[in-house]
């Protein structure tokens, strides 16, 4: 394997370092060595990537991924999830702790990390649980989780309903500097709900989940954040009201960050159509005005990161009555194409789109990477911005196929993914080191 790689004449978009133009990028020993306006000479023995007409980007970082291991390996494993990640251009993922053995201890964190090392494809950063067993009753040992390698704590999939406990989690986490990531859902307001409450839920006769189920919790946690001087990250924001509150909190200088999923900025509640369980998720797909507010939030920085909430499920979890359908869809292999839809339609600049997939998430969680200055890890994603293709769920590297985007036409595709200077995905193939 070459330790020296030269990416020639690609359009380098590196929002953190203010770069957007044709450059040569030289990689040596797993790090970015040089980024040059002028063509660089090919060092002896270097692998050359001809990138003319392509985008050479910092590797994407996904703050919100369910790898399902340990416990639900039939849906996904760390290995298959990492394959899906690099196929989608992601060089780092944050693994949620709501596995069937909950990641609320150093032991589980270490297991996930050792599986990730064995996969050898991309960086995996585990997130630990806020509360033991995700039960919302007692704090998990944040210190042990962080020293074992967790980069955030979250009870994702569930809210922390107990406000006093949430307040203490925010306070306690300041000891370790990790963000507290929250799934905002007041369970008394969402109870029994299957989709967003609006005209479509009325038409379909499905119990609605009002926007207030999310917005009220965002409001509560921003108040707690201000009191505790903690660090809060709001997962999968879906509502206009949440956007407004987060924007205001940021303006006032609170340490809050937020992510949005591609599906919440592309689809609205009408995607439920004829009771399509592939359009069932938590939070639910919202109304068109919420989608518009989220798009504005991507542009103006209220939302820091695009995160997929990659949630693999089996066929039987979805081929059921709508009310019984399990929440969530896979997202790693469709994230770029969907994000580029916003770029092609002029709603989002290419630069900002890249920032939302790279520096934005890196900064939110304090992760390495997300940019291409000399010395940065050589995590690089090469994109052909004009390639047209059709999403085919049967060809996903993920072990699961639960997506509402099967058959959707996309423009722009990942052609290569490099992690620490090693080519892990190229021309549709994942390159495992073994």
């Amino acid at each position, binding site marked *: 394997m070459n330790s020296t790689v030269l990416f020639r004449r690609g359009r380098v978009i590196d929002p953190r370092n203010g770069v957007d133009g044709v450059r040569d990028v030289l990689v040596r020993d797993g790090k970015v060595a040089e980024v040059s306006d002028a063509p660089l000479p090919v060092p002896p023995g270097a692998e050359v990537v001809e990138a003319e007409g392509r985008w050479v980007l910092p590797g994407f970082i996904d703050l919100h991924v369910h790898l399902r291991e340990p416990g639900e390996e039939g849906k996904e494993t760390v290995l298959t999830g990492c394959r899906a990640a690099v196929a989608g251009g992601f060089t780092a993922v944050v693994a949620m702790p709501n596995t069937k053995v909950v990641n609320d201890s150093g032991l589980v964190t270490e297991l996930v990390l050792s599986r990730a090392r064995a996969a050898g494809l991309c960086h995996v950063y585990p997130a630990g649980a806020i509360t033991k067993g995700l039960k919302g009753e007692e704090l998990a040992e944040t210190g042990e989780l962080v020293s074992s390698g967790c980069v955030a704590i979250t009870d994702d999939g569930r809210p922390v309903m107990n406000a006093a406990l949430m307040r203490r989690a925010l306070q306690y986490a300041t000891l370790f500097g990790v963000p507290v990531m929250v799934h905002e859902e007041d369970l008394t307001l969402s109870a029994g709900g299957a989709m967003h*409450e*609006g*005209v*479509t*839920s*009325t*038409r*379909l*006769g*499905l*119990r*609605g989940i009002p926007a207030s189920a999310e917005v009220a919790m965002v409001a509560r946690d921003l108040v707690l954040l201000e009191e505790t001087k903690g660090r809060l990250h709001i997962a999968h924001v879906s509502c206009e009201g949440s956007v407004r509150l987060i924007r205001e909190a940021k303006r006032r200088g609170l340490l809050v960050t937020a992510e949005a999923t591609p599906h919440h900025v592309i689809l609205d509640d009408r995607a439920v159509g*004829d*009771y399509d369980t592939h359009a069932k998720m938590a939070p639910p797909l919202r109304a068109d005005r919420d989608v518009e507010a989220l798009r504005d939030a991507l542009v103006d920085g209220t939302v820091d990161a695009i995160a997929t909430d990659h949630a693999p499920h089996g066929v*039987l979890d979805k*081929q*059921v*009555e*709508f*009310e*019984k359908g399990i929440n969530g869809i896979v997202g790693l292999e469709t994230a770029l194409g969907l994000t580029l839809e916003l770029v092609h339609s002029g709603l989002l600049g290419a630069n900002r789109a890249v920032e939302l997939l790279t520096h934005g998430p890196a900064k939110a969680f304090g992760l390495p990477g997300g940019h291409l200055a000399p010395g940065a890890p050589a995590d690089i994603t090469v994109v052909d911005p004009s390639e047209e293709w059709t999403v085919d769920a049967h060809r996903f590297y993920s072990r699961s196929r639960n997506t509402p985007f099967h058959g959707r036409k996309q423009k722009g595709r990942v052609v290569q993914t490099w992690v620490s200077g090693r080519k892990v995905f190229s021309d549709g193939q994942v390159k495992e080191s073994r």
Partner: protein
Amino acid sequence: MRHLLGIEGWRRDELEAVLDRARAHLPGGPDVTHTLRGKVVANLFFEDSTRTRTSFHMAARGLGAGVLNWSPSGSSTSKGETLLDTARNIEATGPVAIVMRHRSSGAPHLVAKHVRCAVINAGDGTHEHPSQALLDAFTLRQHWGGLDGRTVLIVGDILHSRVARSNLWCLKALGARVVFCGPPTLVPPGLESLGAEVTHNLDAVLPHADAVMCLRLQMERMGEAFLPSTKEYSRLFGLTPAREERMKAGALVMHPGPINRGLELAPSVADGPRSVILEQVSNGVAVRRAILEVCAS
């Protein structure tokens, strides 16, 4: 073959064709026709039902079909069989139509995607109850000739009512004006954008209605804090004798059944001269014969 999953999406002429056809099946017409002779209609009722189940049974028999009656108690559903497996197994016995009732909205849509025979929705969750709306429209047509320009007031728990949704689409398509009335906690959002009018003041709207349809109030709604008490509901939204007196001359009273007598509807009104409740039931068989003919043959 055609599914009847909901009234939504059916055009006026299609609905009128079913209603016209139903007229031929009224008492006085042939007792048994042979449209479905030698065929089987499967009744899949995952939820309890007296009226609808019996009515579809009689309709199928009246067309010469055999009826396979299936219910979840004593079946493999209690052993954890999925809805799709149950439906596919029933389909494998060769029915021309599956008539199904299920507690989940959209359940017949799921089945329809996976079987080849016709699927007729006999009530799915809080979504639709198409045959009820058709028999309601049929009954109104018998009295009025046509529905154009008429105002139908639907009172009660609109949020959880599949009858309300099917009637909205059906009555609108046939030219009527639909007004919903109920407590704000039991009226779902967005009905206006679906073409209905909404009010919470029964007394204000009552004198303008050509027909009043009272919906059944389910007792568990009290426990879920949709309402404080049946007494208060009855006082605000019940069709009492005093309210009946303020109805238009000739205006009709309807109820899809079963009735909570004295709660949403006073006994004297339910049994009074305006009531067409039993006509609704007897028209049900004729209308369901027509539905089976249109869908299954």
